Structure formats: structure tokens, C-alpha cells
């Protein structure tokens, strides 16, 4: 397995990069992050129709381009580098990933083309009140919700109805949950944790926007009150689907974060060259220069581990994927946060202002570090899997 990209892949990177240059300049990021839905529908359409990004990794039979995670990783890295405000992670990674993972050809045939063409925005609702992933394999909260001391909380329950099911309960920290047209949601049915589809405008669905620190990626709590839902796959299928999707999401987020880390290094270096103090560029002081060097090491490591994880995801071995995904998520999570923090420090006061973009990356970095399991969690998973 080579960690070097083909000419075709490099061409994809150039295309996406130049597209995002006009689609996601800082001014657009700021405009969108202040808006409720946090994305630009016109850009979203262009991504789908001109570049085919939403379906890059989707088989051609569903309207996709039939590429894999290596190509998706390239796209995500560039999106992360630009802080693109769009429901890409929610729709193209989580919802699309769930449909690709679940054993339900009919649902795939009906639902994937909309996600691929960008006419439908999807998301996946799986998290309990703390937002933490449950232990591997459990696929979500138990029927009574929560674990340990938190056991009193209710999970999301699915009841069989005349035509299909109804859902009752709440899912938390749902990415782009307030704007999604198609919500895939895990709920406990008689047969165990199961996957359901609910339209965004379903009856009895209340969507509460969350006051997120990272304004460039929206989240919401979704409360279901006897909300009609369609079963995807069979009852009890959701556990392994969620495990698989979360692994892919970790790979995706690691690649996106590697892009962000690259950008903050570039920002820091540019500032270190331009900013004069004591009559010289601050980058000529070793305190700044060596910090940049350490950032470089972290950025190079992030790329290595993220590219590796994307390759493993593309290859499709689930045991190797579990390792590569946790390794990438743990390493890049810390590396991006540390680099984004260093970028603020190198900028000094100006890096602490609202006007400078350093904080946008910083907030994205910390949020991403904790999303889908923090580094301690993933190191724990790795230890279990490596049997130590």
C-alpha cells in the first residue's frame, strides 16, 4: 500500500482546492457561521452537480462516482483546510455511510440518489445526552438509555404502528440535525437497536439548535414524540452499522482535521515571517521558529496517519479499519488542537480577536477532537483491540 497519491488523485485535490477558494473564502465562512443553517445551498448544489463530491465514494448504480475513501479523504482535507460550512460530514459521510452499510437494497435505491445529487441533506442521530459514543459493539444507548449512574435517562424507543413504526425520545448532538431533510436515527425496537428513517418535517419531531462553540458546524437535539419512522434494514441491525459508520466518520474527520492543521501551520508561518517585533521578524526567534517546527512534525504525522486510515477504509478490512480509525482519530485530534492553539499563541493578541480566523480553526479543532470519541476513548479502544 502506497501513501503517495496518483496523478488523478492530485488532480482531484487541485480541482477541489480551486473550487473551495471561491466557494469558501473566510468572508463566506463568517457569513454562513452566523446563519442558522450554516451552509450555502447554491454551493452545495455546485458541489454535487459540478464536482460530484457528495457521491464521490458512492457506487455508480446510485448515481455516485464509484471512488473510495482515499478520494473522499482528499476532499475532506481540502474542506477542513478551508473550514467549508456545509453538511458534508453529516450527509455524505454519516447518512450515506449508514445507507451503504445497512442491508437494505430498497432503501439504498430510494434514498441514496437524493443524497448523491445534493437534493437531500441527510444526517445520522445516534448519540445520548453526553454525546459520547458507547463502548464498541453496543451501537448506542441501551433501551433505558445511559449507563451507570445516569441510568435513569430514557433512550429512544421505537414502537410498531399500523404502518411502520413510531419513535419516542431524544437524540443529542446531531450534526446539522436542524436542517437535514432525511434523519437516519437509531432506536430500540423489540428486536434490539435498529435504524430508522425520518423526514426532517415529520410529525412530532422537535429540533432544537444547540449553542455550539464551533459555529462552522451546526448541531441540534432532536426530540421525537410518536414520530412516524421507516425501518431501514431489519430490527436489531443498527449496532454493527453504527460501529462501521463511526469508524468511517473518524477516518473522515481525521482527514478533514489534517487539512485544518495544515492551514493553521501556514497561517502561523506567514505571521512569523511578516510580523516584526524588536526590529526583526518574530519567526527569527527560536521560540517561534521551533514551535512552528514542532507544528510541522505534527502536521506531517497527521497527514501520514490520516492518509493511511483512508487507504485502509478504502481496502475494506473491518478489523484493520477499527485500528486505523482509532489511531488516526486519537493522533490527529490532539495534533490539530495543539497546532490550532499554537497558532493563536504565535499570533499573540491579534490571534485572540474575533476578526482573525485563528479562533475559527481553534474551535473546530477542539470540537472535532471530542466528536465521535476523544483521544482517551480511542486509545482505550485500541488497547482492547491490541489485546493489552
Amino acid at each position: 500500500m502506497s501513501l503517495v497519491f496518483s496523478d488523478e488523485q492530485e488532480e482531484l485535490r487541485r480541482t477541489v482546492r480551486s473550487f473551495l477558494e471561491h466557494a469558501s473564502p473566510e468572508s463566506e465562512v463568517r457569513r454562513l457561521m452566523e446563519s442558522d443553517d450554516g451552509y450555502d445551498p447554491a454551493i452545495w448544489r455546485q458541489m454535487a452537480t459540478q464536482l460530484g463530491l457528495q457521491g464521490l465514494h458512492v457506487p455508480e448504480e446510485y448515481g455516485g462516482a464509484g471512488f473510495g475513501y482515499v478520494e473522499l479523504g482528499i476532499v475532506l482535507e481540502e474542506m477542513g483546510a478551508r473550514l467549508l460550512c456545509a453538511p458534508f460530514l453529516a450527509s455524505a459521510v454519516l447518512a450515506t455511510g449508514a445507507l451503504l452499510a445497512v442491508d437494505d437494497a430498497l432503501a439504498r435505491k430510494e434514498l441514496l440518489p437524493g443524497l448523491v445529487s445534493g437534493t437531500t441533506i441527510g444526517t445520522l442521530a445516534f448519540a445520548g445526552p453526553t454525546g459520547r459514543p458507547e463502548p464498541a459493539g453496543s451501537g448506542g444507548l441501551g433501551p433505558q438509555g445511559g449507563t451507570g449512574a445516569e441510568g435513569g435517562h430514557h433512550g429512544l424507543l421505537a414502537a410498531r404502528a399500523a404502518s411502520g413504526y413510531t419513535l419516542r425520545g431524544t437524540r443529542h448532538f446531531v450534526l446539522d440535525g436542524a436542517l437535514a431533510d432525511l434523519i437516519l436515527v437509531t432506536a430500540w425496537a423489540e428486536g434490539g437497536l435498529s435504524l430508522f428513517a425520518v423526514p426532517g418535517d415529520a410529525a412530532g419531531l422537535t429540533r432544537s439548535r444547540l449553542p455550539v462553540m464551533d459555529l462552522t458546524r451546526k448541531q441540534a437535539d432532536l426530540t421525537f414524540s410518536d414520530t412516524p419512522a421507516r425501518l431501514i434494514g431489519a430490527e436489531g441491525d443498527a449496532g454493527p452499522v453504527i460501529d462501521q459508520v463511526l469508524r468511517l466518520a473518524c477516518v473522515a474527520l481525521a482527514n478533514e482535521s489534517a487539512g485544518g492543521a495544515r492551514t493553521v501551520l501556514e497561517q502561523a508561518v506567514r505571521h512569523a515571517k511578516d510580523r516584526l517585533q524588536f526590529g526583526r521578524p518574530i519567526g527569527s526567534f527560536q521560540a517561534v521558529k521551533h514551535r512552528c517546527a514542532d507544528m510541522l512534525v505534527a502536521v506531517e504525522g497527521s497527514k501520514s496517519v490520516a492518509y493511511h486510515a483512508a487507504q485502509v477504509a478504502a481496502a475494506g478490512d473491518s478489523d484493520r479499519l477499527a485500528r486505523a480509525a482509532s489511531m488516526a482519530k486519537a493522533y490527529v485530534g490532539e495534533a490539530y488542537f495543539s497546532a490550532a492553539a499554537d497558532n493563536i499563541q504565535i499570533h499573540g493578541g491579534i490571534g485572540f480577536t474575533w476578526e482573525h480566523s485563528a479562533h475559527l480553526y481553534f474551535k473546530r479543532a477542539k470540537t472535532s477532537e471530542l466528536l465521535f470519541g476523544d483521544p482517551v476513548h480511542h486509545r482505550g479502544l485500541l488497547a482492547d483491540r491490541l489485546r493489552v
Partner: protein
Amino acid sequence: MSRTVTAAGLTTLVDDLLRSHPPAATDPHEFLGARFDAGLAWVWAGPGDGGLGADPALQPLIEQRLAAAGAPAPFRYNPIGIGMTGPTLLTHGTPEQRGAYLRPLFAGTEIWSQLFSEPGAGSDVAGLATRARRDGDEWIVDGQKVWTSYAHIARRGLLIARTDPDVPKHAGLTAFVVDLTAPGVEVRPLRQLTGEAEFNEVFFTAARIPDTQRLGPVGAGWRVATTTLMNERVSLGGGLSGGVDPGAALLAAYQEAADRGDGNPVRRDQAIRLWIEANVNALTAARAAAGGNRGRPGPEGSVLKLAGAEHSRRAAAYLVDLMGPAGTLIPDYRMTRPGLPLGGGGPRDTAAAFLRSRANTIEGGTSEILRNILGERVLGLPGDIRVDKDVSWRDIPR
């Protein structure tokens, strides 16, 4: 009155003050004014300056006794004034200046701010470009300051301006007391990454300052600034020493996480590590306070500022990590501007405190500048190679 003031004598004075001005029934500004008049503001200062010419080691006794009686804490009413500019005025002010400024400063009826940093002069404060030109008995000031806390509600500011651009940068500076409500002074909010505008930008456009408000000799501004900066570091570092267990909040947060089922031996170890750090810093602060020369802060202030800032950053990030995704929610990004008096010090929300903590390693001297200070002034290591030394400020690249 001389240094023969005893602990017993001070206790009597404090008790007299508390009797004549019962804290619960007295306006805080009035109480603080009376405390100043009784010589209990800075006990080592001279009579009339809020002191009694007493041993500075006696000051904690006053603070403790007053705090126990529920007296208002002057810092809450005028943080920059009490923490930084007051001690500077005591050291560098003329009798007239001390007479005019110290009492309202201590009483909190005139809020103070500090006008040092500029967009082009952050770590390199001495490179500042705000110009003061002499015009008879006045000075005319033009330039821009930044990071000035409370300038939007302050009456006065301690300003460092360049009075001679043709000499090396440290030599051409002069300190002034400036009236922030005077014509030609404009205060604008500067929004931070927390969403708040905790700090301000201050623009001077042909603002006039009488020469009587000059603090110290012309060209001696750097010495005045240094006094203030060292007091600032003590003030920033010293805030860490409060309380019986300075790491208690960390333990409580971990306990809360454990109670909701999010306990984890790795996070527990981190909590204890940070708890130890907090306690070690508090012990170092106590050691510095006990051994140091109160009123004239020494280099220990820089040790504490560095260690404290790095710790508080780590601790704030830890608390977010502990909460997971729930820790990345924030109550509000609305632009607000802080008022006075300060609150009782209640905990900020986790994410808001986390964001604010990023300034700790920048404000009052970055950690990099502090490491230089420790290396050079405490350990005696040679200075960085300077390209801006012995050249006139005008010729320094910027």
C-alpha cells in the same frame, strides 16, 4: 509615623474602621475611601498616600481581617488601578499626583486603565509608536493603543508615549496620566474570540495632556512601565493563590463526571496532576509572598505568571475534555462589555472559560517573553542578539 507600627496597633485601627463604617451598612466606595484615610490601603505607603509607613509584611493581616468582616475588596472595584497603576503612582508619582489620584483610585470612584500595547507593539512594548509632542505646558498625543481593559468605563489611564523617536527605543518614552474623557480620546470595543469585547482600542487624535500629568521625568517612561508590568505579573500570577484548595474545582469536576458514569482512570490521573500543579503554584506564590518585598515585586512574579498561565490553560482545556461534546457548547457569543465591580468570582461556563484561558499566556507578557525574562534577569543568561539596540527608534524596521 514610622515603621514602628505594630500588628496590635494595626488591628486596633482596622477594628476602629469597621466600627465607624460597618461594611454591611456603608456604601463600598465610602468604605474604601475611609480605609484609605485610615492609612490601611497600602500600609507601607506614606501618610496621606493611604499608608502608615509600616512594614509591608503587615499588609496580609489587614486584608484578612477586613475580608473576614465582609469589607469590600478594592480590587473588584478597580482591578487595573489596584493591581497595577496604584503601585506605580506610589513609586513614581509626585506628591501632587499622589494626592490627586490615589484616593479616588482606591475608593473605586475613578476607574483606571493601562495604555501600553499597540497593534505594532505587543511583545515589544518598548517599540510603541504613539507620539507625544510638547506644546508649551501641554503635550499633544497621536496614536493608537489596544488591549486596554475597562477603557470604556475608566476615567483615567496610565499612558506610555514616545516623546523622542531619535534615541534608542527605551530612552524615548515618557509616562503620562491621561483623562480618558478628554477631547481627542476615542474608545472603541475590540471583540475577542470569546465573543465579548473585554478589551478596547483607544485612539488619540491631537489629545492634550497637561505637563503636570506627566509621571516621572521625560524619557523615563520605560522605568515607569516596568514597575507596572512587574506589578501586573504579580497581579495575574497572584490570583492563583486564593482559596484553601486551589485545585478543588478540578476535583469537583472530575467527581461530577464520574458520578454520571464518565469516570476514567486516565482522566482521574490528569485531574490529580492538575490539582498538584495548582497547589504547587499556590505554594510558590505563598513562598514568594512570605519572602518577597511587598510593594516592589521581584522576579518571582514572572515565575508565577508563567506557571500560572500555562496551568490555567491546561486546566480549562481539561474541563472541556472531561465533558466531551457537551463541553463544546457555549452559552452566548453576543458581544458584551464587562462592567465593575467584578463578580464574586463564580465559575464561568466551561467552554467560555476555556476560550478565555487562551489569553492567559499572551496578556501581561506572553509565555515566550516571560521565559526570556526568567532566563536573562533571574538566571543571568545572555540576552538575545538585538538588532534594535543603540539605534534610534526611527530606524528600527517595523
